[in-house]
């Protein structure tokens, strides 16, 4: 594995399976009376969050704390960034404080990649602009594997032959990018279903299929991943009205009946109930939304353990 986790494209199939299998072993810790391991004692993890986040930041914090690392939380609000400090200066400050790992979320695509050149520690990308969010893809893959193969059969298995449909605002979604890369690495067949305006220009070069018609994709899907319509990133009118979007690409109870019986419904959160997903779908037994949050802690523990738990790699390998 690389020293950093910047993009799902950096993960080979073996790396991905190692992370998922490690997470599988760590999952049992959530059921124990003492949810703590001494593994990262004395290591410092900095959560560097320039964008708002609830679940990702808390998830990383819980993961680091369960492995006994010291956690420093940094959010742009109320910090020197508000006074105009640059990302590089902030990074160097953290470096001087001895951070072994920096978990970064930033509004600019490529921020994690830049940061990795400035700091000596490990950099974990927790979402950079509209680029990537690799730990989300890992937790989604983990959730799909557990739900569709069963906990007992999941270990060591990829997602070969599974059909995953990712629906909605692909253009602004770092979750979709990371998922397309990771799920296809693991052998799944990914299809994007979205209005043409919400698909990136280069989508033809991605390892996935594309469809404008959600209804025809649903009966073929083993898992459907609904994406949030990211109004805060939208600088133009990508669809005529929210209501029309919801009619064509939203998942409501009627549309859900088109899915095969075993299929699951996923959402990376936060949800816009009534827009991309109806409340009764989000709360149905097929929905893995709450499970995804729980799995997020487990998968991030696995990532932190594999990146920080062993020997520091000598400089020659970088």
């Amino acid at each position, binding site marked *: 594995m690389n020293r950093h986790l910047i993009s799902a494209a950096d993960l080979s199939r073996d790396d991905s399976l190692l992370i998922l299998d490690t997470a599988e072993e760590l999952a049992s810790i959530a059921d*124990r009376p003492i949810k703590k391991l001494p593994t990262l004692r004395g290591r410092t993890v900095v959560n560097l969050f320039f964008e708002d986040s609830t679940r990702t930041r808390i998830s990383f914090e819980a993961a680091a704390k369960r492995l006994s690392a010291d956690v420093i939380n940094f959010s742009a609000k109320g910090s020197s960034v508000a006074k105009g400090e640059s990302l590089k200066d902030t990074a160097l400050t953290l470096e001087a404080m001895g951070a072994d790992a920096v978990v970064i979320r930033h509004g600019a695509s490529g921020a994690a990649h830049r940061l990795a050149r400035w700091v000596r520690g490990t950099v974990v990308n927790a979402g950079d602009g509209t680029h990537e969010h690799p730990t989300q893809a890992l937790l989604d893959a983990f959730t799909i594997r557990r739900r569709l193969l069963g906990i007992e059969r999941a270990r060591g298995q990829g997602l070969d032959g599974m059909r995953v449909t990712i629906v909605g605002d692909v253009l602004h979604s770092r979750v979709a990018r990371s998922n397309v890369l990771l799920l296809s690495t693991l052998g799944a067949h990914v299809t994007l279903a979205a209005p043409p305006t919400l698909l990136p220009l280069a989508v033809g070069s991605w390892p996935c299929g594309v469809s404008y018609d959600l209804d025809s994709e649903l009966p073929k899907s083993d898992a459907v991943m609904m994406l949030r319509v990211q109004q805060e990133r939208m600088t133009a009118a990508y669809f005529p009205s929210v209501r029309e979007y919801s009619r064509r690409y939203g998942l409501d109870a009627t549309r859900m009946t088109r899915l095969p019986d075993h299929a699951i419904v996923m959402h990376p959160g936060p949800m816009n109930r009534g827009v991309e997903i109806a409340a009764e779908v989000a709360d149905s037994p097929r929905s893995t939304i709450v499970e995804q949050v729980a799995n997020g802690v487990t998968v991030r523990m696995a990532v932190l353990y594999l990146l920080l*738990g*062993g020997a520091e790699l000598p400089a020659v390998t970088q």
Partner: protein
Amino acid sequence: MCAALNPVARQGLAVLDADEIRRALTRIAHEILERTHGGEEVVLLGVPTRGVPLARRLAERIGQFEGLEIPCGSLDVTLHRDDLRLRPARALGRTELPAGGVDGKTVVLVDDVLYSGRTVRAALDALTDLGRPRTVQLAVLVDRGHRELPIRADYVGKNLPTSQREMVHVLLTEVDGTDAVLIGDGSPGDRSPDASSPSARSPDASSPSTTSTTSSPGTTAAHGGPAASEASFAHRTAAEVRKASRPDDTAAGSRTSGGSGGLVSTPRKTQ
């Protein structure tokens, strides 16, 4: 015990063959029953990789002798090890507790080789996080000496005096396809590129399970490949083994090795 007849003898000199392992386990099973007054409230926990099949075999034997079903599980200690920072992060083994848990039970930890005692230390810590057993005991197939911590085994299959330069490999049918305990001489001249792998790096990295990993294809991430592990073994004659088995020679052996023979601290490349 004839090395020439053993299919795996080329990896080192066999010190226990399948029958001897079977007899040792049978004796340990009886001893556990004796010491625990009939095996009431006993839970067997194997330390991955090879402790787990050993624990299962012991439970099976106890079941045959007393008609008693002994709960059996596995306890992975990787996340509690004290040598994590010496090597790249390694894959985790499974931790599976029997349904009844360990609270108030007599837990017998089972492992293949007892060496520095550090794995057992980690296992005791891991166990503390899972519950509060009434007592904890330790059963090992081979005790090869060179303890670095105040730990001893309650049940020992075979005391095997070794020098720190030597490597002890336990092979079990469930994992390796055959039953044997082998001893090999990791002499410096023979060091293959695999020398920085777990088994070659004596005391700090001497977990029983890792002591034996090099001989089993595909059990851990840090595995160096069968060819590499064979190259790191030189044949020893039976006479040499007998010589090394005398306590005074063992002491001399460990002195001459100066604790350095196996201490190769070259960091491994992982990418």
